[in-house]
């Protein structure tokens, strides 16, 4: 008996700079089994309907990371996204190239910016030349050392995170989730000798532009959880060097603000982040807001039992304990 099929409608982004003045969406309708991966469907379209459709792919097994694209507006690997649930949810399957990278043709993007950020974090071991790794035996790590890598070694550099990232979209100085997850992997590697240098570099190199929106963590097909490793990098950078940037000063200032009264003191925080002169720069906007919301300049009340907060800080924020 033939397997049950569904009629699947695909609206595929098409753009060939040699002939098209603007992108368009081309509709294809195929009868397919619900478990068919989007990639298989696209390859069938190319083989049977339209040989001009361009896309990038290789392994078809969610290992190579080549076929990341936008499937119904989400950054996904086409090879592991089945059509059934997509049709059930959206009635059709809209396939578009990844965001945040220029389109070369159809679903193929120019990944130069993505790989440039990857190279910028120098994703390789930096060893002490005076203490090379032994050539005659493997080096070993303790289970605790291995645990610190978290899920970062699983990254297949598919760029789904980069495509989903609103910080990449808004600010070219942000290295992107994948590069930072890779950086984390080398920062916690016990063999690497450039830990401090890497942390100092990234503290001033866009680390604080992460919006912690967690879209990368949702998008990652390998559960690398980049947004959480970026958080780790922030804490490690402050521990290694202190707070040197607006972002880190804001985080530390916020932490201190709560120690005082248990609640946020908005004015005091602005001063801590920008310094007294920077505070002056915020005056115009502050006045605008103050007219409607006079509380912005008020000192918040002290919570009841605020001394408990101070004691928790005394136990856990001595500044001497290593982060995690």
């Amino acid at each position, binding site marked *: 008996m033939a397997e049950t099929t569904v009629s699947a409608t695909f609206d595929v982004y098409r753009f060939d700079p040699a002939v098209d003045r603007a992108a368009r969406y081309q509709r294809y309708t195929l009868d397919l089994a619900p478990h068919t991966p989007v990639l298989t469907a696209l390859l069938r379209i190319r083989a049977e309907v339209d040989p001009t459709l361009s896309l990038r792919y290789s392994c078809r097994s969610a290992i190579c990371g080549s076929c990341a694209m936008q499937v119904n507006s989400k950054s996904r690997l086409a090879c592991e996204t089945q059509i059934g649930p997509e049709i059930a949810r959206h009635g059709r399957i809209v396939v578009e190239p990844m965001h945040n990278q220029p389109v070369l043709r159809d679903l193929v993007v120019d990944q130069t910016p993505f790989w440039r950020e990857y190279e910028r974090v120098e994703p390789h071991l930096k060893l002490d030349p005076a203490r090379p790794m032994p050539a005659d035996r493997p080096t070993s790590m303790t289970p605790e050392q291995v645990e610190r890598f978290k899920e970062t070694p699983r990254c297949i550099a598919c760029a789904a995170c980069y495509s989903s990232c609103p910080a990449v979209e808004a600010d070219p100085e942000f290295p992107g989730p994948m590069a930072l997850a890779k950086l984390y992997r080398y920062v916690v590697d016990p063999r690497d000798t450039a830990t401090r240098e890497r942390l100092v570099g990234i503290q001033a190199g866009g680390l604080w532009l992460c*919006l912690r929106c967690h879209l990368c963590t949702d998008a990652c097909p390998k559960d690398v959880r980049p947004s959480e490793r970026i958080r780790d990098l922030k804490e490690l950078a402050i521990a290694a060097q202190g707070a040197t940037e607006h972002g880190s000063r804001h985080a530390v200032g916020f932490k201190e603000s709560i120690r005082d009264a248990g*609640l946020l003191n908005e004015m005091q925080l602005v001063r801590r982040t920008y310094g007294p002169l920077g505070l002056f720069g915020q005056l115009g906007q502050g006045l605008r807001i103050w007219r409607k919301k006079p509380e912005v300049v008020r000192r918040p009340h002290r919570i009841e039992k605020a001394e408990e907060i101070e004691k928790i800080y005394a136990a856990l924020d001595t500044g001497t304990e290593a982060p995690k």
Partner: protein
Amino acid sequence: MKFAYYPGCVAQESGKELDLATRWVCRALGIELVEFPSFSCCGSGFVDEANEVLNVAINARNLAIAERAGLNLLTICSTCQGMLTLANHRMTDPKVRARVDGALKPLGIEYRGTVRVTHLLRVLVEEVGLPAIRAKVRRPLAGLKVGAFYGCHLLRPTDEMGGEDGEEPHSFEDLLSAIGADPVYYRGRVMCCGFPVQFVKEATASRIAGRQIQDAKAHGAHAMATPCPLCHITLDAYQNKAEKAVGARLDMPVFHLPQLVGLALGATPEELGLSRHLVPTEAAVARVRPSGA
């Protein structure tokens, strides 16, 4: 229905209208809010960046306060919701738990991990229920097209926040429909408002906020609504900067979620603190067709 009410810092100070509207709506729907003056700030994601375990500990203390009273905890801020929920998750890591317990036990505080953290949006949709809300609507917001703006931490990471799909939620839109408004679907509704970098790089924050507002506007929204007072700060109080960043007039009124629910249930603009917004809301409120029309 009774909750430990966790208003968060902003709703107690510059975002007081959110607290006003929440109390009004909860009174109207029979949700009892129990106050605890010893609740501290959740850390707003910033304390987490500086010291993760410390952040878990201050939130475990908050959760322990609700636990002692035998109550689940109600938030009215996406970021508070995210931070308190993450604390619940991180406390399941034995190493984190040991350090947190070590700091709390000497204070006579123990958190056993039994408190459910829930946001007003979820309570309205899942516990009060949309039919019950629909039955109490006195002035359906017919004719008002609203772009819901969720706030990241209410949704993601999806694995921890549970609830609904972190990239394709619909609870807020369902609620908007129940109160008679027309929800508008746009990509920006699940995106970042820019707040986390407001004090890191203002131009970037403004660009991000401007994009989301423009997106809502392009999809026909007359107003936006958010369950997060931090999103409200960037979208409303800093909208003038967003306008500069994207080079366009936006004129987008932004409501707190309970303000719109309150309007539909018959509250006056004064009772909801609508005059405290930077972008005037009158034109949006006037769009609502008189009932029976």
